[in-house]
């Protein structure tokens, strides 16, 4: 097998050894499945509305979705807890090595998976290789009827047709908070800012913060027993921890 060093290519970070920088804890026991996070995410990140027809083809675009599962046989079916699912910001992400254009790369500075929209050529390999199925593809240039363009978030690129997109952990908010903190000559405080989904959650089922800081709320919640990461057996090192039935 040819490795990147034999090809004399610059070393591109694919995998991390330790815990990432930013992380999330989701408590499914208090999630009511109200979809406020889904709406907040769409507003914050300029996500297109695909309309009825394309939605029917399974082309709906969401960076976060609420999954429901059922247990048992009819008529004794029981619904399990709601499960918010978004990009798990894997430390060792399956989407990254398959991109032929290096459009989805690992941010070494923020330990996040990046999607460089202007680099993306739309091969959709990354989405096919994502075990969590959380990537969304722009199948068309979806029109925003007036006055919707007025609510576009200026800090986030408006994506065009043929571009893959996914949850960024609200990287624009991360940078805004870091910039603000730098201007004031201090470090970013825990809880100073959060992602749109966590901010909108009425039950506070989603908590976001620094997982490399043992003092942060998210680290302390994560340390409780019973937390699990999805598809752990794949070795993707996700940065989202779920609590269910605890």
């Amino acid at each position, binding site marked *: 097998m040819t490795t990147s060093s034999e090809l004399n290519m610059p070393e591109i970070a694919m995998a991390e050894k330790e815990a990432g920088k930013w992380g999330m804890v989701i408590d499914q026991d208090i999630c009511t499945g109200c979809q406020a996070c889904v709406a907040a995410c769409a507003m914050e990140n300029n996500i297109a509305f695909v309309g009825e027809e394309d939605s029917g083809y399974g082309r709906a675009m969401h960076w976060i979705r609420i999954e429901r599962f059922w247990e048992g046989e009819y008529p004794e079916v029981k619904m399990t807890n709601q499960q918010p699912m978004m990009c798990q910001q894997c430390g060792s992400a399956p989407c990254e090595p398959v991109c032929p254009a290096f459009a989805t790369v690992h941010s070494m500075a*923020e330990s996040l998976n*990046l999607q*460089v929209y*202007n680099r993306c050529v739309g091969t959709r390999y990354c989405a096919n290789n994502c075990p969590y199925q959380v990537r969304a593809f722009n199948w068309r240039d979806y029109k925003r009827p007036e006055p919707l363009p007025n609510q576009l978030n200026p*800090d986030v690129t*408006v994506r065009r047709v043929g571009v893959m997109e996914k949850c*960024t952990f609200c990287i*624009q908010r991360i*940078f805004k908070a870091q*910039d603000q903190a730098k201007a004031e000559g201090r470090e970013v405080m825990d809880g100073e800012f959060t992602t749109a989904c966590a901010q909108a959650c009425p039950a506070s089922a989603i908590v976001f913060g620094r997982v490399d800081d043992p003092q942060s709320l998210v680290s302390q919640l994560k340390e409780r027993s019973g937390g699990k990461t999805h598809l752990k057996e794949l070795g993707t090192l996700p940065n989202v921890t779920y609590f269910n039935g605890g």
Partner: protein
Amino acid sequence: MIKKIFDWLKQPLGLIAVGIVFLAVFSAAAYGIYLTQQAPEQPVPEFPHQTHVAFGIQCLYCHPGASKGPAAGLPSQSKCWACHNQIQKTVDSAKLAPLKDAVINGESLEWIPVAIVPDFVQFNHRAHIAAGRNCEECHGDMSKVTIAENPQVMNMGWCLDCHIEAAGEDQEKLIKLSDCGTCHY
């Protein structure tokens, strides 16, 4: 049929016609490119940067956002009016008529930015001013220009050249300043 056309084109008159068509297309293209290189028409067409800078007005007085946030901002007419309603020249100068009209009619001056990066690039003035960079390094010497034109191509290589140089030996800074996520999201 096609042979007939070719035969006609090969005679002298045909060759001249081909030449004229070629020249027309070429000059249209050249004119199109020339138009993209022109500074756009501004609401106050002859706003003299150099005069104002020469008075010692700070850049940050008219572009205050540069030290606070991502965008430097272009001044509104109330900022101009604070000085100009006390200046005699405002009454009789034709160059200042657009400003006067805007104030009287309560319309805003809609400056057209010329220093721009594409929508998918997130530039931040504050970080650069805080790192001690001068406006001149990126915008040229504004004390010599009338209406602003962009003196250089603000492409990715230009950003990265300076970022690599600014990071120097500091590996952590280099990673941060060359990370795709720093500029594209």
